[in-house]
Every structure is written in structure tokens, then in C-alpha cells.
């Protein structure tokens, strides 16, 4: 569905995304996770055909996205993290605007969404709360009935209730239309709740990309209660190590069943695993990588 091979995007002398190879299957709800500037927005924008790759190839729904690919424009829904809405428009006018510009527009579904969320069609967009504006922006994106949704931090800066409403709206759409979703987020709890595929980015590179179930099955926490320098057996990759006064705890990737009585073995949660990869990527910040477009907002 979304397939990148050695994909790269260069901004002047720095890379926004580099050597990105991944393949997100159809029907998934995939999360892009990583610090600001790690390449999430760059990847989404290239997927939507808003930016051209500088290296490698990208295929979305079997085509290479570019600003001229009209067919993809209809099949892909992109939501920018700035949620561009015309603030002086009424909600109903935004809907009509969407209908005129999209042949596959589903007006009934859009109106139902907004009714469920108690957002009046008469309201001016600028008078709605941040949460309601996010709902309207997502509703407009869903009403196109795209096969693929590319959402850049769709739930950022929302209060917990608005956030949950928004995620449920999205999941209902996935249940009804079997759309595929790629969304970027900083909320690891959301990833665990709704995503079945995770891509972790650090320093403009992909450091982890797989099914959540596979990720959870192939990682363990090994701990040992002394200060010896016992090294884990071969076949194990240490992702992150934490020292405490009483011992060490390692988050590791295990491709084969692990059995060693000296180590205590626990199953980490998806959040713990993703966090370990993020931590591993973070200490080497050296400023060589540009900020994403997103960092300009705040």
C-alpha cells in the first residue's frame, strides 16, 4: 500500500528523511513515531504528493505520488497538522466546498459524523474549539472516502475526551470502509490502542518498522540482580540498557526463544519497546538534521 525503497528527501544540505525502506501493507492502521525533526511529516507529505523525493522510490497504492497524479488525489486523504480550514467559513460551507472538489464525496457520512459530535453546521469554523476544528478537518478528510488516509498528528493538542472522540471516529471509518491509515503521533498510548503497524523514526532514518504483534513477540526485558558484566547470549540485540543500584535491565530483541536461568525475563509492553528505540535514537542529537516543517508551528 505504501512502499518506500531507499527513499530520501534533502532540504538544501541536510536530509529530512534518508535511506527509508519500508512496506506498510494494505488495511493497516500504521503509526509513525519519532521526535520532531525525525522525518514523519516529510514522509507523509511525500506520500500525499506534496513533496518530491530527492532519492529512492515511493509507491502509494501502486503509483508514484506527485502533484499531478489526479487519480491518487482522490484515493488518498491527507490531513496536515496545521489543519487548514477557512476560519470565516461556516461548517456547512466547508462541506459544500469539499463536495464541489471531490467526486467521491459522501455528504451523508460527513453530516452524520458532525451530528454525532454535536457540531452545528451553522457555526463559523473560527468560533469552534480546537477539538471541534480537528474533528471538522478529519471529517472533511474522511468524507472523500479515500482508500488511504495520511494524517499528520491528527489528535495533537486535544483534550482527552476530544482525542478519544476523534480516534473513534477514525476507527469507525476504518471499520466501515476498510481504509488504510498512516498517522504520526507522539502519544504512545494511542499507538498501543489503535495501531497494528509501527514505524519508529530517529534522525531521519527508520529504526523499527513492523507489525505490532511481531514487535511485541520479538522483544523482552532481561534483568539481573547483581553488578556482574554478564553478557546476554548470542542472537540477542540489546536495544536499550538501564542501570539501577541493584542490577541491570536490558530491553532486547530476540529472534529465537530465550532460555537462560540467570536472567529474569519479562514481556515488555509495546509502549516500553517503542520508548526504548526512541531513547536509543535520542542521545546523539547533533543538529545535522533539519527540523520538520512541523517544528515551525510552535
Amino acid at each position, binding site marked *: 500500500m505504501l512502499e518506500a525503497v531507499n527513499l530520501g528527501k534533502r532540504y538544501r544540505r541536510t536530509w529530512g528523511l534518508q535511506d527509508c525502506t519500508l512496506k506498510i501493507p494494505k*488495511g*493497516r*492502521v500504521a503509526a509513525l513515531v519519532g521526535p520532531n525533526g525525525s522525518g514523519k511529516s516529510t514522509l507523509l507529505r511525500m506520500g500525499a504528493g506534496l513533496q518530491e523525493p530527492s532519492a529512492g522510490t515511493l509507491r502509494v497504492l501502486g503509483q508514484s505520488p506527485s502533484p499531478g497524479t489526479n487519480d491518487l488525489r482522490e484515493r488518498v486523504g491527507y490531513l496536515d497538522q496545521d489543519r487548514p480550514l477557512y476560519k470565516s467559513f461556516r461548517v456547512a460551507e466547508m462541506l459544500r466546498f469539499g463536495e464541489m472538489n471531490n467526486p467521491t464525496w459522501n455528504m451523508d457520512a460527513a453530516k452524520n459524523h458532525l451530528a454525532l459530535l454535536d457540531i452545528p453546521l451553522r457555526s463559523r469554523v473560527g468560533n469552534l474549539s480546537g477539538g471541534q476544528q480537528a474533528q471538522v478537518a478529519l471529517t472533511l478528510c474522511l468524507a472523500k472516502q479515500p482508500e488511504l488516509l495520511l494524517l499528520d498528528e491528527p489528535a495533537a493538542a486535544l483534550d482527552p475526551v476530544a482525542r*478519544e472522540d476523534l*480516534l*473513534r471516529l477514525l*476507527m*469507525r471509518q*476504518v*471499520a*466501515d470502509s476498510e481504509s488504510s491509515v498512516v498517522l504520526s503521533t507522539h502519544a504512545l*498510548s*494511542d499507538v*498501543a*490502542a*489503535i*495501531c*497494528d503497524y509501527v514505524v519508529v523514526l530517529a534522525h531521519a532514518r527508520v529504526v523499527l518498522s513492523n507489525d*505490532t*504483534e511481531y514487535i*511485541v513477540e520479538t522483544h523482552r526485558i532481561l534483568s539481573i540482580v547483581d553488578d556482574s558484566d554478564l553478557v546476554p547470549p548470542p542472537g540477542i540485540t540489546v536495544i536499550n540498557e538501564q542501570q539501577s543500584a541493584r542490577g541491570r535491565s536490558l530491553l532486547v530483541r530476540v529472534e529465537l526463544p530465550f532460555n537462560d536461568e540467570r536472567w*529474569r525475563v*519479562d*514481556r*515488555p*509492553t509495546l*509502549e516500553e519497546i517503542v520508548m526504548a528505540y526512541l531513547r536509543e535514537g535520542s542521545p546523539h542529537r547533533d543538529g545535522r538534521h533539519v527540523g520538520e516543517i512541523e517544528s515551525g508551528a510552535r
Partner: protein
Amino acid sequence: MSQHPSLTFRLDPQSGLAPYRQLVDQVRHAVSSGLLRDGDQLPSVRDVVTQITINPNTVHRAYRELEHQGIAEGRAGLGTFITLHLSVAPDAAEHGIFEHAVHDLVINARRAGLNEETIRELMRNALRQNGNVRS
């Protein structure tokens, strides 16, 4: 949704269990406790997605697993229903009972002040001592 008010799913992000496993366990518990009976309909995927924030693929996955375990059956165009064939029912019910028993044991051991490692050690010993017992 009033069709199946007896079953409300919950997800515990701290459990360490995959979300689909949590749904499977909750249906099994509901079956072993008698809350769900033979022929009862499970909530539709859309209802579950409306009820809790979860990926519909995860619900499909859980229902497939329940079908695989012989506890549920998908009927085309109708939904997923509990089916307790005689050969399966006692086994499924028993599994639930043991799961509860182990759960209670862990809670009691913790209340008594035992730490996780000690509880594991006790379990390991018990398994080792009874390793050759087969019925």
C-alpha cells in the same frame, strides 16, 4: 447495542497482553461465568469500535481466534455467535476456572507480601514437582 448489554469490553494498556488477547480472555471469562451462553451474539465490530478506542482489525482478529478455539462462530451477514459444542464447553469452562484460580492465588500471595520472583519460584517448583503427572 442493547442486544448484548452483558458484555462490555475493556482494554488495560498495562497488562502486557496484546489487545486481541484481552478481548479473547474477556469473552472466555464471560462464557465461563455464564454471562454469555450458547447462541448469544457478540457485539458487532462496529459496536466495539464505538464502545472502546480500538482498531477494528484487532476485534476481527479476536473473533477469528475465538472461532479457532471453537467458542464462537461467524455467520455470514449476521455476526459472530457463541457456540459451545458439547466437546468444547467443559474444556473452555475449565480453562476459565483455572485462570481465575491462578489469578486469585497471585492476588493472595501479593497481599501476603510475597514478591513477584518468589511467586514465580513457587510456581516453578510446583510445576517441576508435578512435571510427570498426566491424567
